[in-house]
């Protein structure tokens, strides 16, 4: 099995665009939320949501949008993008730049691309409404490729000239964790030398408001406390859009070209609850087994983990069962120094892009030697008793870090990153 290294990460998030801004927000526990009306039509509800600066998606057509680098894109390519496609593109460019990758190499078939996207409900709505208005006779030719869930892999593989494996993953909030896990396998098994992993999510009205029907969104109107994972007063998640990207390479390939190594991805694991389409297993069976499978695959003991970036989204049920699962693995035992925090207290819940975002944050924290605090935690849920839940960002030399994600259908994925 080939060793898998991370050589680049890129961020478009509510707490910053680019590594420097994200790092600064994590250190200073600066959240990326604002009270916003969705969809801003004077009728929609006001909700606290993640706000990504520097991207203007006003207007229904991509030629109206402004974002970093948009002026240099071909109109025909731009018309194939959705808002989250723009997030993904900008995040990927940053990750590729950090990895100092020669993009001409993508044509040799040894670089692949795995993406995660829920599609663009906004563009789907727009195109179908417009088509219905013409008696179902006329629709934009780019309506499909810009809006269905494969939109990221279609566009980015073509744009970057990737000739290796390309695929999209759809498993709700574990989508980009799955993309990352299977990208790891591609390299570990020797099928590819390098994998680009990208997750992105729109975070607009059409993506977030349907969660109101599930009563899953926080109704807290205070941006400072609406997302408070593990807190007794948590009442739902705060949604956000954004994009995140990672560049994975086999050890031989990365060292041969003299790449700077940020972290090692040591392994991953997954397990399903087999319980409910939406509710987590009451004892966190699936997330516990995902962590166990990950630790086994990585040959690392739970007691050696320095930090767990928890999935905890600030929903009453989800955070509780994850805390129970963490305790069942010994993370609350006496003498265990593992810190537990959820960066969603700062970023919000990025749904299908959460896994890639939080994995990239893990890599950033490994390189910086720090554990982000639980930003808005003031009164921990009793279910968390014994877990070390820092409320401030702490400097700590990290060796092993776990990243958890859970999604609809009781899907659970865990990855382990190590200091190289």
């Amino acid at each position, binding site marked *: 099995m080939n060793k898998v290294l991370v050589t680049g990460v890129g961020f478009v998030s509510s707490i910053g665009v680019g590594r420097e801004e994200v790092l600064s927000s994590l250190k200073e526990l600066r959240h990326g939320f604002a009270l916003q009306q969705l969809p801003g039509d004077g009728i929609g509800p006001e909700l606290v949501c993640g706000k990504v600066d520097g991207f203007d998606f006003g207007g229904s057509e991509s*030629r*109206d949008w402004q974002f970093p680098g948009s002026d240099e894109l071909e*109109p*025909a390519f731009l018309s*194939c993008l959705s808002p989250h496609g723009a997030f993904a593109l900008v995040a990927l460019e940053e990750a590729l730049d950090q990895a100092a990758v020669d993009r001409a190499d993508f044509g040799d078939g040894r670089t692949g691309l795995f993406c995660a996207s829920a599609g663009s409900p906004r563009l789907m709505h727009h195109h179908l409404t417009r088509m219905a208005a013409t008696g179902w006779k*006329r629709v*934009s*030719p780019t309506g499909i490729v810009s809006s269905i869930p494969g939109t990221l892999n279609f566009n980015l593989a073509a744009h970057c000239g990737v000739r290796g494996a390309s695929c999209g993953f759809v498993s709700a909030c574990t989508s980009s964790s799955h993309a990352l896990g299977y990208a790891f396998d591609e390299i570990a098994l020797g099928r590819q030398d390098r994998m680009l992993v990208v997750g992105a999510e729109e975070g607009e009205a059409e993506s977030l408001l349907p969660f109101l029907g599930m009563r899953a969104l926080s109704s807290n109107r205070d941006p400072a406390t609406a997302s408070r994972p593990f807190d007794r007063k948590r009442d739902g998640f705060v949604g956000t859009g954004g994009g995140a990207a990672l560049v994975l390479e086999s050890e031989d390939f990365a060292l041969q070209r003299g790449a700077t190594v940020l972290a090692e991805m040591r392994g991953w694991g997954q397990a399903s609850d087999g319980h409910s389409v939406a509710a987590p297993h009451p004892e966190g069976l699936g997330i516990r087994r995902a962590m166990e499978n990950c630790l086994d695959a990585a040959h690392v003991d739970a007691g050696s983990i320095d930090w767990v970036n928890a999935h905890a989204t600030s929903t009453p049920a989800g955070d509780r069962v994850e805390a129970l699962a963490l305790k069942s693995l010994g993370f609350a035992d006496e003498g265990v120094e593992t810190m537990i925090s959820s960066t969603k207290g700062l970023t919000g819940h990025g749904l299908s892009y959460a896994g890639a975002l939080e994995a990239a944050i893990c890599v950033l924290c490994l390189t910086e030697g720090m554990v982000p605090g639980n930003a808005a935690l003031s009164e921990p849920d009793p279910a968390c008793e014994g877990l070390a839940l820092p409320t401030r960002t702490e400097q700590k030399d990290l060796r092993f870090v776990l990243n958890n994600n859970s999604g609809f259908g009781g899907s659970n994925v865990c990855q382990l990153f190590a200091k190289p």
Partner: protein
Amino acid sequence: MSEFVSTRLPPLHRRSEVEIQHFLRGFPDEALSSAQELRTRCDDSTLETCLFGLLTFYLPKGTEPETVQNLPDARLREDLGLDSLALSEAIFKIEELFDISIDNSELADVLTIADARLLLMEKLEARDE
């Protein structure tokens, strides 16, 4: 190229100046100004300028816009670099602007700029009022 003499206005006369401005935002100036002119007056050269302006928008960056006007026999795909998606986008825009429908079978013979011009003019001549 065949000579085109319009006896009727293209359907742009039903659109307001503001509508056309919004519809063609971001397009080359000549596309916008010629479309505005087509609201009140239709002639061969204005229609041609409008079509060329629309096609120019979809050209790959770095292509000289003059190519569209000066090389009527330039092939849309091979010479101008318009791929199938860019061509589909351009056709969609033309259909919407002129309120016409172009069947796939009618596109089979459209290989050059001159072919595109001819097809548009035939569609406008044949359209039902």
